[in-house]
């Protein structure tokens, strides 16, 4: 009886102290604000597969299940780094923040984010369950610096109705090229049959897409384009081969000219081109369109990884979002709370993969639940074979900008291909040389 009383007293004391000791951590994320669609404690009213809706719901759930932790959520304008840099400069970074894997080396090299291996091990957050692409993306110099949230990559989104019309469907599968010559031949065949461009890709006001294409096809050729972390090699036969191919595609009108990102997306939705080269995040929107009767896409929509053109094994350049912990003063309780949040995020990997992004957890990637989502079986391999840039390369966003800038000039014919590659190589090396 005494024991029971003691236990009750302790319990009361415990719950009491628990209540008074709510740990608050600041969480900063991108993906926008959509509280209107996700009232607290309710499932999303609208757009349930949107990035914003899913992440809002996951964070709400975490708070509900962890009453001892309060999240102070700050939403930053995409991509978030101007604000984050300013917060570091002011000595006030958040406790946990979303970060692109391609940006992590910059923050690691300055010691701005913390390695998490030991913390993860302590709470049983199993890094061996990360998919290879995710694991590589968050690992810098042998340490894990973040909880990978997703990987994403560019894909070929295909209008099957137009492919059928062009005679490019066999057994219900799209016929895709295996070499540059096949690509040109099929694109010409497509254009002849439909009168439409084979490829849709933003060309105006666009840099990222060009660069990702080059990276993927350099990987296809097993080209070593970062011989070390401070140098890029682009003035090479491998790179010229790729850029000249795209230059020819553009010059022959096999790719729609003069479209920016929204125009290219609208063109694909309206059936004005065969293949839209855009990221994982568009699967949901395109699929919804394909399921709406009477729309140009309702005759069929398929998604495939970029077909390899130079005989390499299937791969693709991937990037991804991760959650990282900035180095700052915090109590052990706050630190523990951050790690608990990360573990929770790991457990909710399936929910996040509904956005179209690749899962980061191997068990989810294998699960029937995930593979039952539309088109996922065709692309899930990329979670294994997708490659990020070498983890020691800093300023990857800036590099992407420079390469994209030069590639846009070359492909649209404003600059000779060789010159553009030479300029891109020079500009990137100059940038890396001047990184402190």
């Amino acid at each position, binding site marked *: 009886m005494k024991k029971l009383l003691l236990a009750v007293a302790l319990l009361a004391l415990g719950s009491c102290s628990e209540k008074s000791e709510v740990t608050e951590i600041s969480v900063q994320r991108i993906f*926008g604000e959509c*509280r209107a669609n996700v009232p607290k404690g309710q499932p999303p009213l609208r757009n349930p597969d949107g990035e914003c809706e899913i992440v809002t719901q996951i964070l709400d759930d975490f708070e509900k299940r962890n009453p001892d932790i309060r999240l102070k959520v700050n939403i930053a*304008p995409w991509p978030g780094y*101007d604000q984050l840099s300013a917060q570091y400069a*002011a000595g006030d970074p958040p406790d946990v923040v979303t970060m692109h894997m391609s940006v992590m080396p910059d923050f690691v090299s300055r010691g701005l984010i913390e390695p998490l291996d030991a913390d993860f091990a302590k709470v049983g957050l199993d890094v061996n369950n990360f998919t290879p692409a995710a694991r590589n993306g968050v690992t810098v110099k042998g340490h894990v610096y973040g909880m990978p949230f997703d990987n994403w990559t560019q894909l070929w989104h295909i209008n099957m109705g137009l492919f059928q019309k062009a005679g490019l469907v066999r057994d219900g599968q799209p016929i895709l090229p295996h070499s540059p010559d096949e690509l040109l031949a099929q694109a010409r065949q497509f254009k002849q049959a439909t009168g439409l461009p084979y490829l849709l890709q933003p060309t105006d006001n666009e840099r990222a897409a060009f660069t990702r294409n080059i990276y993927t096809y350099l990987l296809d050729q097993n080209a070593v384009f970062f011989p070390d972390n401070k140098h890029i090699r682009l003035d090479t036969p491998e790179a010229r081969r790729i850029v000249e191919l795209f230059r020819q595609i553009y010059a022959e009108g096999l790719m729609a000219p003069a479209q920016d*990102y929204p125009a290219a*997306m*609208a063109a694909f939705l309206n059936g004005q081109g065969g293949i839209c080269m855009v990221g994982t995040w568009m699967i949901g929107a395109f699929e919804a369109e394909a399921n709406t009767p009477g729309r140009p896409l309702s005759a069929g929509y398929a998604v495939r990884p970029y077909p390899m053109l130079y005989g390499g094994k299937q791969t693709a350049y991937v990037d991804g979002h991760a959650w990282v912990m900035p180095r700052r003063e915090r109590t052990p309780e706050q630190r523990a709370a951050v790690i608990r949040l990360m573990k929770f995020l790991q457990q909710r990997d399936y929910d996040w993969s509904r956005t179209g992004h690749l899962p980061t957890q191997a068990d989810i990637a294998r699960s029937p639940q995930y593979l039952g989502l539309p088109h996922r079986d065709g692309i899930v391999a990329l979670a294994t074979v997708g490659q990020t840039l070498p983890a020691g390369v800093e300023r990857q966003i800036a590099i992407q900008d420079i390469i994209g800038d030069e590639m846009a000039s070359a492909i649209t014919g404003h600059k000779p291909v060789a010159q553009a590659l030479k300029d891109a190589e020079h500009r990137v090396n100059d940038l890396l040389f001047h990184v402190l």
Partner: protein
Amino acid sequence: MSHASHKSLRNTLVLVTLIVLGFIMLIPLIWTVLLSLKANGELMRSTANAFHGPYTLENYIDILNNSSVFRWLMNSVIVSGLTTLGVLVLSSLAGYGFARLDFPGRDKLFLFVLFGLAIPEQAVIITRHQLFTALHLHNSYPGLILPGLAAPFGVFLMTQYFRAIPKELDEAALLDNASRFQVFWKVLLPLTLPAQATLGIFTFLASWNEYWWPLISATRSEMFTLTVGLAASQINFAQTSGLGYLMTQAVFAATPILVVYIIFQKYIVKAVSGAAAR
């Protein structure tokens, strides 16, 4: 008779010109409003869908349902309002000083201020951020208001305007033994109302639409201004999948400025006949 018909022909011509030019000015604005009234999904397919129904207030409801929006709106009103007030006070005093009073080094000082006109924001933003970090001014109203007060344009404008007012006016008042401040306050300031109104609208507008400084100084959600808050609320690739919402944000954010314009604009062109009560 021929004089009169000449005049009415001229007036008609003026009106037609204005209507044509005005229409060109307004097309993009009408376009914005139409887009804001459309569902986002429809606009993703084609923006031409905005030319016909169905229209919806969904985007407006979404903005109003964002619980933070009123806090951001209030921050913006406070910041832009106080910045405007501060600029008007400082510029009027300085403009009067430079245009009317003599003191050692006046002309050199004026040139020194003119020099500030040439300073681009980019040349100071990083070091100003460091300064405000040292002074612990980030995430505060003073941190958002102070930078706006240093802009030299208002001083330049008010100096030019004071200079154009006939000197006899204040000399007469000074002869009546009014103090210098009284002359400034009672005699000259009322004459500068059109310039004050212009400067007021301009400052409010610039402060309202300011993006970079509030982005890097007010990093906590409760201190966001409307511009930053709305930018943070945008989903990725908002131009594609949230175009209607973006346009609604534009209409929403522009409305307070229009109100300020309407309040101030009547001082810009007073009844011309009684212009500037001479």
